[in-house]
């Protein structure tokens, strides 16, 4: 593994068992993430982007059918670790998560300061005083006034609660933080504020982010590189310059064209049809049915990809 790679995901599969059959939520995902790099996973609901995050963090529900592939964090193969080892050595100390709707996932009966300090006590065994002083540093870092530490979650606004959830993920100083839709329920100004904070933190603490979102416009605030997912598969990986300005995969093109723009006089367009069911996805390319550039080969076999810094899963490119 090259020295500048923090996380490497190779051929990751996550299928769920359901009454109707096996749901192929993540199907052969591969990508790299560098040190102090932010990568955005873009996709629409049901494309498997949250499942991808859960698979990396090994936060899995009970109905997992297939869970295979390789995930390297620096030089540790995390999927080979036992659950207990993973919890002790990786989760929250090396990588942490700001879950979806994190602002509503704070414990209502604990003061927010104690909640932020808790991972320090659990993972590093420090005493409460030291943990609280680390929590205090994190409050300053994410822009929450330090006297808010004594408040309960309901006494804070949505934006402040989101910042507390972020402080909780940062307090142990992990190398990687996964953000799952961090601003989807927030107002425009609050959203802009949080992204300003994330940019500053990325610079100050030199950490990496995986940002999972369906909000294409705001994701460009943080993205160094972009991963586009469709129907459980990664269809394109590229620099933000490439994906936002001249995307290669027909789905990425269509998706970018569907975003209404404030500063360009360009009518947005929608994508006809719906994504396929993940219970029984098509054998060929999963986007073929909705693709304007479809040809015979697309229906016959799935496109192959060269894994790397940039990839396109489309027969148009070989």
């Amino acid at each position, binding site marked *: 593994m090259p020295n500048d790679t923090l996380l490497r995901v190779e051929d990751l599969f996550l299928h769920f068992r359901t009454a109707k059959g096996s749901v192929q939520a993540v199907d052969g995902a591969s990508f790299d993430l560098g040190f102090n790099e932010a990568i955005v996973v873009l996709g*629409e609901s049901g494309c498997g982007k949250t499942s991808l995050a859960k698979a990396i963090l090994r936060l899995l529900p009970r109905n997992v059918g297939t869970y295979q592939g390789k995930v390297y964090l620096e030089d540790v193969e995390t999927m080979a670790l036992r659950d207990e080892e993973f919890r002790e050595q990786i989760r929250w100390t090396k990588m942490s998560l700001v879950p979806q709707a994190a602002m509503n996932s704070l414990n209502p009966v604990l003061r927010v300061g104690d909640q932020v300090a808790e991972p320090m006590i659990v993972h590093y065994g420090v005493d409460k005083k030291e943990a609280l002083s680390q929590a205090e540093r994190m409050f300053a870092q994410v822009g929450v006034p330090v006297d808010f530490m004594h408040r309960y979650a309901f006494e804070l606004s949505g934006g402040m609660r989101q910042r507390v959830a972020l402080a909780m993920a940062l307090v142990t100083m992990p190398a990687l933080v996964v953000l799952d839709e961090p601003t989807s329920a927030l*107002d425009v100004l609050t959203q802009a504020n949080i992204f300003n904070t994330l940019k500053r933190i990325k610079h100050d603490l030199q950490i990496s982010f995986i940002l999972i979102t369906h909000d294409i416009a705001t994701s460009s*605030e943080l*993205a160094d590189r972009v991963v586009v997912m469709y129907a459980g598969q990664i269809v394109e990986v590229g620099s933000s310059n490439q994906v936002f300005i001249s995307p290669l995969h027909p789905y990425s093109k269509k998706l970018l064209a569907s975003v209404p*723009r404030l500063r360009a006089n360009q009518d947005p367009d929608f994508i006809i049809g*719906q994504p396929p069911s993940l219970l029984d996805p098509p054998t060929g390319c999963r986007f073929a049915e909705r693709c304007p550039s479809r040809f015979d080969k697309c229906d016959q076999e799935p496109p192959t990809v060269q894994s790397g810094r940039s990839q396109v899963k489309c027969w148009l490119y070989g």
Partner: protein
Amino acid sequence: MSVDSNVLNPQEAPAVQRAAGSQNGPLLSINDLHVWYELRKFGFGHAGYVKAVDGVAFDLEYGESVAVVGESGCGKSTLMKTILGLVPVTSGEVIFEGARLSGKNPRELKWYRSQVGYVQQDPYGALPPFMSVRHILSEPMVINGIKDRDKQRERIQRAMEEVKMTPVEDFLAKFPHMLSGGQQQRVVIARAMILDPRLIVADEPVSMLDASVRVEILRLLRGLQASHNLAVIYITHDLSTVRYFSERIFVMYAGNLVEKSPVDELLRDPRHPYTLALLEATPDPDPENLLTFKKVPPGEPPSLIKPPPGCRFHPRCPHMIKDLCDAEVPPDFVISPRHSVACWLFK
């Protein structure tokens, strides 16, 4: 479309109301509207008011689409609920086709509600899970006295075709959970259209939908607006969708409309410092965003129980004029015939 299909079962409509519905004046007129919620201490005893809507005025023409843009807690939902007749007016008036909304008897209110369609934010939450699409669409007709089965069937057919859910028969027996998010929102729109309303109130109709479907639903609403000469009030926090959907835009902050303007003019020449802040904070997908920080006004919107005196934006405003902005409420200053702004900078 034939004339009689456009009128909701004429026998049901009180004669006075119909006569008042001439096309001369505006469709909807809101004058100095205040909607306050009373706060109670321990369940009794007065503890002040939440002034959710405080002095809102505008006219809406037949067939016009306006967008109300503002952040959560600015009072846009209360304004919408007042227009739908769900929240009582504290003072001021809501006038629909020349008749005041407050003081209507239940029969008149029922007629009024048949003239105003409502498209909810969360389509799945808005559709009863135990009803089939056919049942959902026939319910408003049953309530409003259209009992003839053939007539019901004909209207359902037409509404479903209008929202492009074809072939219609494939969908009628389905339940909401069997439909995709976009299809659910189409059913919600079909339900809002089934009584041929004059006005549609759409509360964030696309915020729960995926990017690729959003534009499709907005276009659909836009098409219905044109073909039915419908007026639409589009409530949203997303400025980027407004230009593709509305003719006029109202920017709302802490219970007031701070700027009213045609959409093009507002984007070309925004005036109110709050409007500027909203525009600045709304991103386009652009890799250049990575390199800059957004300018965001400090602080958060004020409490609507004790709003700041004078202009409500003054504590966050970079151009605050001392002893004016923090003392006197700015009136609407006219920038151009249809563009006005409530800000002392444009005295």
